[in-house]
């Protein structure tokens, strides 16, 4: 596996932003009422993430360290505005379903997290691949949660009737509590199956961590802080 595909594998599986790092939970819990909403949110965020990582990586030697956060936010906010207008123009149904959560991509902690922990320290191309990996990981996670919630809460997936019409939809799953139920059950399954997860420290290998793995105790940054 070369270092570019490794970034993608890393984003989707090993350091999945939702299931492993538990970042960006606000849009995750709020917009995943259906699979299509999850997909829309995921892809919008991916687009912003890839472009932001690429641009910030190019600018990483120009942005002074003390004002790097405002600098990053300006880049991210410009990109989000573009995505916002594109969505409004071409997919108005998704745009109205996602609502306030599109502008809120600006403060999505995955994007700032990747900018801080990866793009500011690496070359543009690999930063873009890191963005693709993290974005796809986010998209897959949102789509999975959305699909489960839609299945149980409405009996459909991507709007197509899956369960027989005699199935009585459990509408709590498309309300806010359902998001917590589904996320926690999926995380419990991860732990049970020993997949990488926020609480499953054994699955993390020491010394390979580039960003935040969620496992604070064994985090490379943890030792750094102590050393300083």
């Amino acid at each position, binding site marked *: 596996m070369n270092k570019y595909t490794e970034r993608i594998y890393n984003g989707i599986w090993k350091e999945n932003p939702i299931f492993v790092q538990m970042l960006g939970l606000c849009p995750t819990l709020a917009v995943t009422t259906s699979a299509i909403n999850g997909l829309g949110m995921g892809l919008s965020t991916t687009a912003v993430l890839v472009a932001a990582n690429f641009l910030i990586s190019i600018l990483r030697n120009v942005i002074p360290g003390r004002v790097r956060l405002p600098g990053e936010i300006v880049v991210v906010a410009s990109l989000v505005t573009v995505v916002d207008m594109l969505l409004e123009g071409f997919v108005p149904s998704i745009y109205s379903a996602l609502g306030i959560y599109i502008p809120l991509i600006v403060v999505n902690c995955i994007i700032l997290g990747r900018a801080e922990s990866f793009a500011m320290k690496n070359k543009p191309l690999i930063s873009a691949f890191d963005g693709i990996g993290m974005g796809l990981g986010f998209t897959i996670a949102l789509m999975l949660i959305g699909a489960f919630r839609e299945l149980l809460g409405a009996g459909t997936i991507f709007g197509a009737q899956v369960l027989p019409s005699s199935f009585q939809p459990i*509408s709590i799953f498309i309300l806010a509590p359902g998001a917590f*139920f589904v996320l926690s059950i999926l995380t419990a399954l991860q732990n049970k199956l020993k997949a990488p997860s926020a609480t499953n420290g054994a699955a993390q290998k020491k010394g390979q961590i580039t960003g935040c793995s969620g496992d604070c105790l064994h985090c490379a940054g943890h030792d750094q802080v102590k050393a300083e």
Partner: protein
Amino acid sequence: MERLLHVSSSPHVRDTVTTNNIMYDVLIAMIPAAAFGVYQFGLNSLLVIILTMAACVLSEYIYEKAMKRPITIADGSALVTGMILALNMPPEIPVWIPMLGGVFAIIVVKQLYGGLGQNFMNPALAARCFLLLSFSGLMNNFTASGIGFDSVSGATPLAMIRSGESVDLAALVIGRIPGTIGEVSVIALLIGAVYMLVKKVISPRIPLIYIGTVAVFLFLFGGFDPYYVLCEVCSGGLIFGAFFMATDYVTSPITPKGQVVFGILLGLLTGIFRLWGASPEGVSYAIILSNLCVPMIERVTLPKAFGKEGKKA
């Protein structure tokens, strides 16, 4: 030295009250209300009660077996949860809905947080709210074709009071009204409550303060009409909730001062929900919201340890 001295650590005086006694006393206390519900609404109610209790016990057994924990179904707490949940159901509900609620109550609300004594809100009520949010149509359908009498129709007394119609107080007290299986008859509920009070299973503090606060609140904000207040107190789940659900040991404060605060909080929330909420009833939500405040209430009402009374903390 023929007799061995028996050495043990304190406490040396033990009460004979056990979790089992308490739970079975609560169950016995609910029998009058359950029996009245079955008499009034027909056999579907009986089926709902039996199957919900079975679902609770069975899911507790399966979960504890799967997690290799000690099996605690014999302590009766799952039976109580099932009974409370069943009594909170409308009489004509398809039985799989309360059964699903029972599984949710035991596994999600009770066992995932560590089992009996660890749950942060009343499992039966949390399950009821889960079902209310999920199947609002079926859960609010109080049309019953009961065999007890034939004048039961759609709206519950609370909905009628809200829309300005007058209700018959005598029917409210006896229970000849539409409603959930266990909440309709004030007399049957009070028989159970008196039984629990006599057996000292519950203290009267929480229920009386709760009901009193609701009465005062509705008197002040509902137009100074005693008859209206009396109808409100006797209808809906207030009596049932106050004596059987708000007094749950696990989810109510243990300090006397805390119980006063808890009762007042319950009363205020119920009054607010009933007067200005979207639905005419608010007892369930008031109780689970107050359950969430219990740790905070207990922290501020913790009595000072002996010898430290005068000092500042």
